[in-house]
């Protein structure tokens, strides 16, 4: 039996390690090493309910907070599974050498995160994601050394190999040889992260672009909850990107304010009381948007030693890129796209609607509903990888691979034809126009008019994408990925238009109420260039 995992961040590695441990040979492919994955940027922490947490905290409480944060459209069974495995995942991470921050008795310590009733976010200084990546890289290496994991770099996803609704591998584009490679596998796992490129530069990695989900969508995979996009309320503007100011700052007591006639107005505390600064990300983003003024986050009152120990990453980013000393002055912050709750629709075992095709990590949509809680992304990355790995290892495959030679030759010819083009039409230019459209029309606040305008623009870009030839001065991946990225962008705006209510991260100024009739996940499918959205009232993905 052979498994193929595409993407080598935390979710991809967790899945590969789980598969290898259970005796399944796994090929782990990615364009770049795990050290370059977006996972290394997850700073804040990982949620779990362990013995020794605060009195009154429990798995049930974690489940409720997660469902509540997700406005009750995250699947209850899925969320229960996620939260029940928090302790197991922390113990596992410890056992592979993850360096958690600990107290004087060597017990991992916790911090408070937004939207949670109890303090349950375990962390590794200010680089939790990086510490987990380093530990998983080492653990994956253990299986690489004995031949159970084969890592291949400089490989990009091109398309899935699908016959009669069953996935049997993938076509991969090899950057080194500039050729397509067919890779047959019994089970294929997509772990390619969120749809960042739809919005140009986000707080995350430039490598995550949504292409794989978009292409699979065009090949028949269903997508879910695309309209829910998390704007992180506190990011710092720099010339090269908006940089995340971790929620840990608010967790450590950071206070949000704006200035009015020279006086500080602590708007979150005034409106929501003592815990105002720890409200969910969507709410704070909307409050900052609504105040119409530059917002600031102040942590300067905390003692310098605590800042050095717990917030060193934030301290360094502010000083390095803006010359701001957070021990002395507040941080100017504004909301920016940070996380995609939507993605490939998966069942509880993380299989998509295409047999033998799985999705894990941020590219899969299952736990976070209409809004994700801080600290739940690392937990779900680990958990989803484990769930898919365990599921696959429990299956058997006696199937012979179908003959897909004609499909593969067709795709090779299509790609070669595009390489031979002499046109230099700039693909980046269209991607940048798309980003402007998405930021303008699918912002923190949307309405029918803006969404219609967005759909019209994306329709136009798609019509250009159909006609233009390729830009030879960028890597082939950037060229062939364009149409699927535009297609998932279109599906996202379409899904947002169809949800005529406000819920979680999706806020409509023309439908400000949360409506019972929409209390379900949205599922979007694709056919002949058209999108079809339905609400998952039967909860078919909760099975």
């Amino acid at each position: 039996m052979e498994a193929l995992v595409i993407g080598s961040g935390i979710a991809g590695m967790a899945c590969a390690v789980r598969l290898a441990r259970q005796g399944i040979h796994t090929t782990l492919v990615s364009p770049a090493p795990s050290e370059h994955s977006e996972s290394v940027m997850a700073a804040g922490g990982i949620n779990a309910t362990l013995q020794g947490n605060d009195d009154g905290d429990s798995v049930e409480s974690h489940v409720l907070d997660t469902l509540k944060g997700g406005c009750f459209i995250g699947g209850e069974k899925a969320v229960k599974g996620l939260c029940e495995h928090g302790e197991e995942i922390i113990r596992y991470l410890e056992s592979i050498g993850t360096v958690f921050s600990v107290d004087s008795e060597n017990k991992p310590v916790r911090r408070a995160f937004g939207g949670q009733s109890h303090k349950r976010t375990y962390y590794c200084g200010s680089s939790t994601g990086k510490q987990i990546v380093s530990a998983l890289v080492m653990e994956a290496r253990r299986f690489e050394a004995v031949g159970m994991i084969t890592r291949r770099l400089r490989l990009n996803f091109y398309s899935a190999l699908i016959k009669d609704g069953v996935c049997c591998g993938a076509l991969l584009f090899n950057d080194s040889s500039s050729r397509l490679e067919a890779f047959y596998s019994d089970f294929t796992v997509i772990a390619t992260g969120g749809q960042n490129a739809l919005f140009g530069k986000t707080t995350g990695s430039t490598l995550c672009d949504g292409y794989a989900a978009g292409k699979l969508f065009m090949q028949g995979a269903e997508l879910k909850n695309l309209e829910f996009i998390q704007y992180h309320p506190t990011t710092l503007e720099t010339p090269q990107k908006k940089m995340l100011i971790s929620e840990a700052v608010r967790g450590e007591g950071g206070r949000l304010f704006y200035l009015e006639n020279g006086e500080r107005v602590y708007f979150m505390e005034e409106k929501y009381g003592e815990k105002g600064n720890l409200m969910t990300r969507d709410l704070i983003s909307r409050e900052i948007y609504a105040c119409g003024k530059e917002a600031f986050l102040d942590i300067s009152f905390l003692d310098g030693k605590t800042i050095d120990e717990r917030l060193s990453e934030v301290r360094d980013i502010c000083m390095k890129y803006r010359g701001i000393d957070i021990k002395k002055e507040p941080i100017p912050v504004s909301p920016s796209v940070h996380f995609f709750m939507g993605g490939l629709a998966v069942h509880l075992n993380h299989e998509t609607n295409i047999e033998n095709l799985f999705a894990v990590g941020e590219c899969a949509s299952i736990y976070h509903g209409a809004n994700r809680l801080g600290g739940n992304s690392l937990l779900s990355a680990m958990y989803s990888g484990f769930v898919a790995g365990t599921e696959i290892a429990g299956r058997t495959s006696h199937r012979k691979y179908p003959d897909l030679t004609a499909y593969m030759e067709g795709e090779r010819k299509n790609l070669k034809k595009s390489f031979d083009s002499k046109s230099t039409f700039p693909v980046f230019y269209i991607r940048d126009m798309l980003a402007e459209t998405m930021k303008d029309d699918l912002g923190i606040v949307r309405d029918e008019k803006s969404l219609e305008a967005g759909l019209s623009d994306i329709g136009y870009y798609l019509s250009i994408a159909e006609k233009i030839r390729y830009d030879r001065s960028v890597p082939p991946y950037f060229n062939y990925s364009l149409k699927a990225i535009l297609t998932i962008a279109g599906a996202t705006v379409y899904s947002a238009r169809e949800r005529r209510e406000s819920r979680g991260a999706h806020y409509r100024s023309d439908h400000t109420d949360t409506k019972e009739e929409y209390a379900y996940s949205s599922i979007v499918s694709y056919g002949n260039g058209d999108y079809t959205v339905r609400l998952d009232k039967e909860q078919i993905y909760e099975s």
Partner: protein
Amino acid sequence: MKVSVLRRKEPDKEPYWESFSYDGPEENTVAGLLDYINYNDDIINDKGEKTTRIGWECSCMQGMCGACAMIVNDRPVLACEAFLKDFEGQEITLKPLSRFPVIHDLIVDRSGIHESLKENNVYIGEYRPPEDKDFEQDYTSAKCLKCGLCIEVCPRYTDGRKFYGAPFANDCYLVASRNREKSGEISEAYDEHFKSECAYDLACMKICPMGIKLTASMKKLNTLKRETGENS
């Protein structure tokens, strides 16, 4: 500002210099500058000729992943942390790291770092840490980006066949500090592929963007090895 780039179309093609005029924000980093030059309908060099976009790697754009390591004005840096204002004069030169095979323009193949670690079984196995764990040292060491800057400045590194440089020693330390029973075995690989050749120049420590204190790791490795030897 004049920007000269040592370019190469493909691995087996000859390198060549090409220059560009940069009129973007002065507060930019080199990564921001490369983005600025590349984001145009047509890419024009300083002779007014149409040319191709400059190839370079990036991911996080904020010093957390190490993808954009390159040489700016003969100084190995992470491009996303190298501010234009910190370079004197009105010209900067960009070159790929020299100790790794060039793939395209400023993109190099650093997979050798990972291969050497895999071939020498530098992994923890079972988690059996020593009783006196040094969390600060473990935490900092686990932040290694495998960016290759330390290898670039190492006076002893040649072709990476025998002496593997600081990233290898760093991961050897991480293994020994997490599995005391593997200290002996890992020390042998460390001795052969690092310690026996290291000139203790410490340039690797000075350049490390994560501030990893390699000498502290080396000291601890020696202690762990001695203790393992005494107990065996």
